[in-house]
């Protein structure tokens, strides 16, 4: 049904029909079967049996595919590596497949950012719904672009067509209040409906040079204060758009958090497993970007009682969520609303401190360091809520903490123990309250991050009264990730979870720790906190996942510094 016309027009009028899928599998039998199945779903299919070939195809035709499905075991490259590359360079949703359904593998997939993990034999009905991942990303992109205020409701109520329409004006428009946009969207719906591809943004390839410019700009501004617009201005790259930067910023944060995670995961937190953030509704901003599409849910959850969430959230999720963070980053930075508008922390401090965080990650790119420092915004919300913590707040905090923190730089003053720069932080937040309780994620790893974050924050907090509270949410979000969307609970592990995360720590724990607000949490940093006392499910803050747009499951996984070509 679908003629593979190449990549000229991404979609036909009837989304998801015409979805452009790239299938990568070295098994010829499966390749043939999948091709047939996808064609039956009315998708445009391109197949290849080598990972490198797939990357070439993707690079040649940027914006020529909507989604990638790849087997985990490829002869020329590890499927997870491919996954990372795709997420980083092309920012496309990637689905992993394997005949091996071992939890570890699945988890790894999620960590590396897969937005789903299918077990072979794959049924057609499983393939029919893969469009949701593409859709989700779009939504997040839209979100990012728009201000986060009250986005939850707005977004949630948006119809799919609107989202596509958003693409139209996403391209050029800068963030405007979500509400305003809503109206516009509605109007556009009618006419633009069904043709979202027309304004599809071209994907930007972040070359090393470009990325260096980006990092430089971020450092100049101060990680704490970064916002896509500011970065864009500083970078002075004429053809780059705000959205490009926003999305890259998200990834960057994600990357940092991942590094951090790796660094301090060893400690107890490893357990964090965020359940699928996307699935959770309540996931708060899901600090865990991992949660992949959590953001959406989170938003709606409104765990962010504090508008802060929006603002803070942006962050961390650099990677995958193309759009997600964009909005967020810009949002929080500039739009802190409500209580959080306080920009307390001194981002700069963070920068310097980041190092102290001890990034065990070591691999953390110094550039990232600068990230850490910024985010005063993040903390601003700290102020808010101590009270808030209870649930709603929690999420926020995490978000903030994380998002802001992502890069370790943040407050490291205190954290010496937390090696990881903000980057690690980011993972946390996605804690959703709800999930936290139930999810039992092993938030441990996150915790570390949080700790670092918190710590960082604490430093900041001191001045701003940022406290541990802030941290709490982070973990919560991770837990909330449970069940979101397609991501299996344990899979949604955010990048935070360092490889070593322990299994035991649940997000709740993390959250709780944070709640306590004391530095205790922070101290753990490396040690493997024991947040047992914090286990309140309620605490699990649901960091506004939506903010992070966790969907980028794919990139959730901790970045291997070595892999970060871009971020090197």
């Amino acid at each position: 049904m679908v003629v593979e016309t190449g990549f000229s027009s991404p979609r036909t009028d009837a989304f998801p029909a015409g979805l452009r899928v790239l299938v990568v599998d070295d098994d010829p039998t499966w390749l043939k079967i999948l091709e047939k199945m996808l064609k039956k779903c009315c998708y445009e299919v391109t197949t290849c049996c080598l990972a490198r070939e797939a990357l070439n195809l993707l690079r040649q035709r940027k914006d020529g595919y909507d989604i990638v499905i790849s087997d985990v075991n490829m002869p020329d490259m590890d499927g997870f590596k491919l996954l990372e590359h795709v997420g980083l360079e092309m920012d496309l949703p990637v689905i992993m497949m394997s005949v091996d359904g071992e939890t570890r593998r699945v988890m790894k997939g999620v960590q590396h950012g897969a937005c789903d993990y299918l077990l072979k034999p794959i049924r057609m009905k499983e393939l029919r719904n893969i469009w949701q991942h593409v859709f989700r990303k779009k939504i997040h992109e839209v979100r990012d672009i728009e201000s986060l205020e009250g986005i939850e409701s707005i977004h949630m109520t948006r119809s799919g067509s609107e989202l596509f329409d958003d693409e139209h004006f996403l391209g050029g428009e800068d963030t405007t209040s979500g509400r305003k946009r809503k109206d516009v969207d509605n109007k556009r719906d009618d006419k633009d409906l069904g043709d979202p591809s027309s304004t599809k943004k071209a994907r930007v390839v972040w070359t090393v040079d470009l990325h260096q410019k980006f990092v430089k700009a971020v450092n100049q501004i101060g990680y704490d204060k970064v916002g896509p617009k500011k970065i864009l201005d500083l970078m002075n790259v004429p053809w780059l758009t705000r959205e490009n930067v926003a999305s890259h910023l998200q990834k960057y944060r994600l990357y940092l958090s991942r590094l951090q995670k790796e660094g301090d995961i060893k400690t107890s937190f490893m357990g964090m497993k965020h359940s699928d953030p996307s699935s959770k509704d309540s996931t708060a901003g899901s600090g865990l970007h991992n949660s992949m599409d959590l953001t959406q849910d989170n938003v709606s959850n409104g765990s962010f009682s504090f508008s802060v969430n929006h603002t803070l959230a942006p962050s961390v999720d650099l990677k995958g969520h193309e759009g997600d963070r964009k909005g967020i980053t810009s949002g929080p930075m500039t739009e802190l609303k409500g209580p959080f508008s306080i920009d307390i922390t001194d981002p700069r401090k963070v920068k310097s401190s980041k190092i102290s965080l001890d990034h065990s990650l070591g691999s953390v790119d110094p550039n990232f360091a600068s990230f850490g420092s910024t985010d005063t915004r993040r903390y601003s919300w700290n102020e808010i809520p101590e009270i808030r913590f209870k649930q709603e707040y929690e999420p926020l905090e995490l978000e903030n903490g994380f998002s802001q923190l992502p890069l370790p730089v943040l407050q490291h003053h205190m954290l010496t123990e937390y090696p990881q720069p903000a980057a690690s932080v980011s993972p946390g937040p996605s804690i959703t309250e709800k999930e936290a309780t139930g999810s039992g994620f092993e938030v441990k790893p996150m915790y570390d991050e949080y700790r670092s974050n918190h710590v960082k924050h604490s430093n900041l907090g001191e001045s701003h009264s940022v406290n541990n509270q802030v941290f709490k949410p982070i973990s919560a979000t991770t837990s909330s990730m449970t069940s979101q969307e397609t991501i299996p609970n344990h899979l949604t592990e955010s990048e935070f979870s360092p490889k070593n995360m322990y299994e035991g720590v649940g997000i709740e724990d993390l959250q709780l720790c944070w709640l306590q607000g004391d530095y205790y949490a922070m101290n753990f940093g490396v040690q493997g906190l024991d947040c047992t006392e914090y286990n309140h499910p309620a605490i699990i803050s649901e960091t506004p996942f939506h903010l992070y747009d966790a969907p980028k499951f794919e990139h959730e996984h901790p970045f291997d510094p070595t892999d970060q070509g871009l971020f090197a």
Partner: protein
Amino acid sequence: MDLVKLQRQWVDYRASLYKEGFLDEQFTQLQELQDENNPDFVVEVVSLFFEDSERLLNELTTALEQQSIDFKRVDAHVHQLKGSSSSIGAQRVQTSCIAFRNYCEEQNVEGCLTCLQQVRLEYSLVKTKLEYMFQLEQQILSAGGSSPM
């Protein structure tokens, strides 16, 4: 042969394959994928499976004949075979691969060799049966009937 008789024979034969565990639900999926655009889809896919499996079995034989066996490699091949057999629903082959992988993990040479034999056997059986089924199909088509797939 009488068309109706042929058709019935085909149906019964296929049913027996399911019953005996040679084929599973996945095979039905393949049949459902076959349509006027791909009238020989099932046969094509199964042929691919045969080719791939034979290659893998040979690789396995070679790998296990080595002085110093590389179990990781053996395991990788078995894993591939498992994936491949799952694609057409060759259930018994798939199941025998599971046991095989366990032996690989244990680095148990004897166990692996036994499993290889078992996998080979299961593969031959399902191959023979599928080929017979395709023959019946051909006969039906020749007799003027439409594909029973």
